[in-house]
């Protein structure tokens, strides 16, 4: 039991699960190359680098160049997974993501760690509340923000299986578990109803899915039955799930670590 998420177990940070899943994936697929921009120990791509040093490139503090290089690798048949903080790889690498990855529809997987404001005390330069809007504006990109370690593992596997660019946002703090194990039915673009309800729907993603479940428990004590939808994929959006929620519950509340403009809300 913990005070922030009563009723939920705290699991690993999604960034830790990303690193573990990437390393595991590396054992299966030698077309995977991993690039990081001097934050490998924070994004957790470091573990892949230790296991597969010949397929790991630390480009130094050069986000724009890293994205361009990834485009070059991908156009030669590699599957690059590149990572940095969300606010650096997406914001500093945006034009490169657009020209070298998105429009050519290349098979590059981008992980932005330390997403949202939950990374905490490092302040506004490190926090990222614009990355989802920018990533959603990139043609051909899938944009995904897993809720917990289990969903992150599923998302990393799905990102590899998907042919085309994918943006995954991970978080720094340990995340409350909303799944018991890796969700086998995970698919990009499909919302997951974690709690049934008819009075209101809370649509959330990332760490706020756990918070939404906690909120729904509290509402139940007041006689309000809230549906909770985990909208891990922001693009493509499961708009049918949104329409059903609006029709069946009459009200929707969105919880996300992002600005109102351009995010899930």
């Amino acid at each position, binding site marked *: 039991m913990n005070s922030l998420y009563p009723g939920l177990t705290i699991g690993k940070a999604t960034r830790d699960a990303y690193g573990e899943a990437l390393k595991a994936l590396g054992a299966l697929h030698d077309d995977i190359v991993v690039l990081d921009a001097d934050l490998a120990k924070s994004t957790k791509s470091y573990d892949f680098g230790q296991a597969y040093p010949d*397929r790991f490139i630390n480009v130094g503090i050069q986000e724009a160049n890293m994205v361009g290089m990834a485009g070059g690798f991908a*156009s*030669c048949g590699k599957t690059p997974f590149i990572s940095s903080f969300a606010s650096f790889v997406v914001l500093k690498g945006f034009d490169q993501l657009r020209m070298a990855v998105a429009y050519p529809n290349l098979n590059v997987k981008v992980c932005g760690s330390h997403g949202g404001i939950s990374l905490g005390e490092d302040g506004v330069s490190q926090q990222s509340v614009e990355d989802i809007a920018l990533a959603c504006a990139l043609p051909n990109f899938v944009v995904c923000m897993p809720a917990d370690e289990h969903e992150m593992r599923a998302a990393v596997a799905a990102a590899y299986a998907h042919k085309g660019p994918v943006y995954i946002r991970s978080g720094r703090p340990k995340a409350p578990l909303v799944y018991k194990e890796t969700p086998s039915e995970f698919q990009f673009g499909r919302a997951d109803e974690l709690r049934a309800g008819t009075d209101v729907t809370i649509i959330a993603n990332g760490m706020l899915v756990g918070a939404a479940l906690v909120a729904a428990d509290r509402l139940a004590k007041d006689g309000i039955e809230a549906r909770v939808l985990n909208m891990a994929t922001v693009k493509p959006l499961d708009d049918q799930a949104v329409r059903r929620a609006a029709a069946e519950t009459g009200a929707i509340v969105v919880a996300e670590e992002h600005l109102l403009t351009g995010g899930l809300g």
Partner: protein
Amino acid sequence: MLHESKSGHPGGSLSAVELVTALYFGGFLRYDVADQDSADRDRFILSKGHGVPVQYAAMAEAGFFDVAELKTLRKIDSRLQGHPVKGSMPGIEASTGSLGQGLSIGVGMAMASDMDKMDFRTWVLLGDGECQEGQVWEAAMAAGHHKPSKLVAIVDANDFQLDGPVDAIITLDPFAAKWESMNWVVREIDGHDMAAVCDAFSWAESQFRPVCIIAHTVKGKGVSFMEHQNSYHGVAPSDDELARSLAEFDVATLEPTLVTSGNGKGVSK
């Protein structure tokens, strides 16, 4: 082409004619028009994407597509956009035109070539003004560190950028020293001296480390009223200017003299 489309960048295309011609027809850029997507083809990235008319012309001449298609440049539904678009046709290896990006892509390709023990080489043609972009130096620094064995950066140093002379806007000096300081080997040549261009490309192929060729060129080369005149950076020739240009070239003697050989390696007939 540019007259037909009534827009485009003649100056920076003409300065690169010898460089691009030597690549496609001098036996340096390895391609096979019968197997345009082959994994071991050399990669050519035109990082100074606004110069793409000269690349399209070379590609048509080499047999990537019909010469007649050149007249569709910049027109609606054409594959020949005003700047290169990866995916528009084989042989266009990167989307460029947002300056500064091509070398990074080339570094990735060159490292992929080494990683897979492939033979293909990556050639990146940059503009000198373009080298004001910080990303060029990120890529140069990364290549200087990782030292991919088959990467050639060619700078079409025509001394001008859109707003005026490079030296008057932001000087690149000391230019060769910048590359050398990042562990590149550098050679400076006259980019209109075909023998010197070919010699430099041969030398580049023998280095097995990142090579930079600084080709000193003249913007608008070959058209007397465009040479050194930066007003033709992004302005297509008028009817009269087209006629005067073609007269200077004596077009009757310029009928195709360059073809690709059966093995797909560009050679001069």
